C-alpha cells in the first residue's frame, strides 16, 4: 500500500521525477565513464608497452610510464653502459613526446635498428621502415581513424611529417618518428626518455634488473612482463586523485538533486503528512516514506546511468576510434552504491523535517 502510494507520488510529478532520475543517471555515468576512460587508457598503454616485446624498461628517477610530458631525459650514452651488462642483448633508446594535434597522442622517437632489435620489428601493413627527417610511421588503428595512407602528410609539433609506413598496432605508441628528428625539434640532442632492454634469454631478466639497480640506484626499472597486471589506478597517483574528485563531484550532484527534490516534495505534501500523523503514523513511518521514495528515484537513476554510460562509450569511441573506455561491473556497482548513498544522505534532512512537522500546523488552515 505504502509502495503503491510512493510510486503514484513519483508518477504524479513526472517532470521532477524525470529530472531527478536523469541527474542521478548523469552522476552514475560520470563516474563510470571517467573511470572507464582513464583505466581504459591505462590498460591500453600498458598492453602496448608490453607488446613491444622488451624485457625491461629503464626511466630516469620518479618518472611515470604514461606521461610523456615529464622527462628530463637521460643521456643516450647510458646505452653504452647498459650494453656491457651480462645478459643484455639489445638496448633501444626512445624519446617521448606528446602531440596534441587532435587528441592526445604519444609519439615515440626511435632508432629503427635498435628498436627492431628489441621488439623483433614492426609488421608492416604497407610502406617501409623509417629512415630520417620528417617521416612518421602510424599504426593501423590510427591510420584507420585518420584515414591515412602511405604518402599522406601528418601535422605533428607544427611540422609536416610524411607517412612512410602503416604498421600493426601494439608496439608502444601509435606514432613513431626518427629519434634524431625529435631530438632536434625539442632541443634534446643525444637525449632519451627511456630505454627498452631485451635480454638474451627472458630468464635473465631478474639478474639484469639487479645489475641495473646497482648501476642506477634511483632510476625507475620495471620488468615489462607483468606490466598489465600491475596497472591499477594506484600505480599512478594523479589518476587516483582524479577518480576521487570525480566521485566527490558525483556525490555532490546526487546529494543536492535528491535534497532539493525531496525538500520541495515534503513542502508540497505538508497536508498529507498531517493526515498521516492524524491517522497515527509515527515519525519513522513518515521518514520511511520519503527515504523509500528517494531510494526508488536513485534506483531508476542508476538504471538510467548504466544506459547513459554505454551510450557515452558508444558516442566517444565512434568519435575517437583509438579511445578505449572500460566499463567494468565493479565500477558500475560502485557508482550505484555512490548514487544510492548520496541520494539517501540528501533525503535524510527532508525526511527528518517531514517526520517532525507539527500535524496541527499542517491541518490547521482549513
Amino acid at each position, binding site marked *: *500500500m*505504502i509502495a503503491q502510494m510512493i510510486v503514484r507520488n513519483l508518477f*504524479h510529478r513526472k517532470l521532477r521525477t524525470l529530472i531527478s532520475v536523469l541527474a542521478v543517471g548523469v552522476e552514475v555515468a560520470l563516474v563510470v565513464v571517467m573511470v572507464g576512460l582513464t583505466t581504459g587508457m591505462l590498460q591500453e598503454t600498458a598492453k602496448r608497452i608490453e607488446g613491444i616485446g622488451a624485457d625491461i624498461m629503464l626511466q630516469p628517477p620518479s618518472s611515470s610510464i604514461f606521461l610523456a610530458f615529464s622527462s628530463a631525459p637521460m643521456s643516450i650514452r647510458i646505452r653504452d653502459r647498459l650494453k656491457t651488462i651480462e645478459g643484455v642483448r639489445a638496448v633501444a633508446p626512445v624519446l617521448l613526446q606528446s602531440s596534441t594535434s587532435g587528441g592526445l597522442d604519444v609519439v615515440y622517437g626511435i632508432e629503427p635498428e635498435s628498436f627492431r632489435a628489441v621488439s623483433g620489428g614492426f609488421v608492416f601493413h604497407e610502406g617501409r621502415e623509417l629512415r630520417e627527417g620528417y617521416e612518421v610511421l602510424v599504426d593501423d588503428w590510427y591510420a584507420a581513424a585518420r584515414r591515412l595512407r602511405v604518402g599522406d602528410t601528418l601535422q605533428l609539433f607544427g611540422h609536416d611529417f610524411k607517412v612512410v609506413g602503416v604498421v600493426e598496432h601494439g608496439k608502444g605508441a601509435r606514432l613513431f618518428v626518427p629519434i634524431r628528428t625529435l631530438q632536434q625539434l625539442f632541443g634534446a640532442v643525444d637525449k632519451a626518455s627511456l630505454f627498452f632492454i631485451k635480454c638474451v634469454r627472458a630468464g635473465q631478466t631478474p639478474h639484469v634488473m639487479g645489475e641495473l639497480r646497482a648501476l642506477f640506484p634511483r632510476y625507475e626499472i620495471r620488468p615489462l612482463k607483468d606490466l598489465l597486471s600491475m596497472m591499477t589506478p594506484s600505480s599512478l597517483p594523479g589518476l587516483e586523485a582524479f577518480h576521487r574528485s570525480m566521485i566527490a563531484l558525483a556525490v555532490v550532484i546526487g546529494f543536492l538533486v535528491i535534497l532539493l527534490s525531496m525538500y520541495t516534495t515534503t513542502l508540497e505534501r505538508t497536508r498529507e503528512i498531517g493526515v498521516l*500523523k492524524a491517522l497515527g503514523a509515527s515519525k519513522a513511518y513518515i521518514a520511511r516514506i520519503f527515504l523509500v521514495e528517494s531510494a526508488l528515484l536513485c534506483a531508476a537513476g542508476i538504471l538510467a546511468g548504466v544506459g547513459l554510460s554505454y551510450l557515452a562509450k558508444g558516442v566517444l569511441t565512434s568519435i575517437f576510434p583509438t579511445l578505449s573506455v572500460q566499463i567494468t561491473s565493479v565500477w558500475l556497482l560502485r557508482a550505484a552504491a555512490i548514487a544510492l548513498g548520496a541520494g539517501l544522505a540528501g533525503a535524510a534532512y527532508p525526511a527528518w523535517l517531514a517526520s517532525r512537522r507539527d*500535524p496541527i500546523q499542517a491541518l490547521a488552515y*482549513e
Partner: protein
Amino acid sequence: MEPILKTENLWKIYRSSQVEVSALQGVNFEVYPGEFVAVMGPSGCGKSTLLYVIGGLTQPTRGRVLVDGNDLAALSDAERTRLRRHKIGFVFQRFNLLPTLTARGNIAIAQHIHGNGFDPHRFAVITRMLGLTERLQHRPAELSGGEQQRVALARAVIHEPKLLLADEPTGNLDTRNSEIVLGMLRQLNRELGQTIVMITHNPEAAAYASRVVHMRDGVIVDGIPAD
C-alpha cells in the same frame, strides 16, 4: 460507567513570536462510551484546538486529558502517537484524502498504519454501511464531496477506534450530502456503538447528536449529560 474521555481544567496557549493566544481556558468535559456529542460555538472559540488536544495531535499547556484511562499530557510524543493510532479516528472538514490513492487505498493505508493488517470482514462491513462498495477503485478527484467524506469516515473507523473525532465534517458539503454523512455518523453510532465527538456550526447537524455542548472563549458553557 467510566467516561471514555475526560478533560480536567484543560488549557492550551499558542505561543508565537510575540502574541499568546489562549485557545482553551480550562475545559472540563466528559464523554461516555456510545455517546454522539456535538460541540457548537462561535468561530475561534477553540473547538478545533480541543479536538486536536483530545486526539493527541498537540500537547495541552495545562490540565489533564484522559482517553480510555490514559493521561495524554503525561505521555511522550511517541506514546501519544501510538494511542492515537489505536484509539482515535479523525475526520476533517476538508476531506483530506491522499490524492494519489484510490478510495480503497485510502482506507487500506489506515489499516497499514494501524499495523493489524487487512481485515476483510471489517472492511466489507464499513464500506457497505457507508455505501462505498461501488466507488472503491476511484481516486478522490473522481468522487463527489459526499463520497469523499464517506471514504474519510471509513478510513477513520476502519480500525475500530474508541473515539471518532469529527471537525465540521459537513462544513464543505451541500444539504443533501450533509444529511447522508450525518445519517451515516448516526448509523455508526447506533449500530456499531461508535463514540463520536463532532464539531459543527450547524444546529441541524447538531440535532443528529445525542447530546450538544456549547463552547465560548475557550471554555464549555454547558454540557450537562442529557441522560
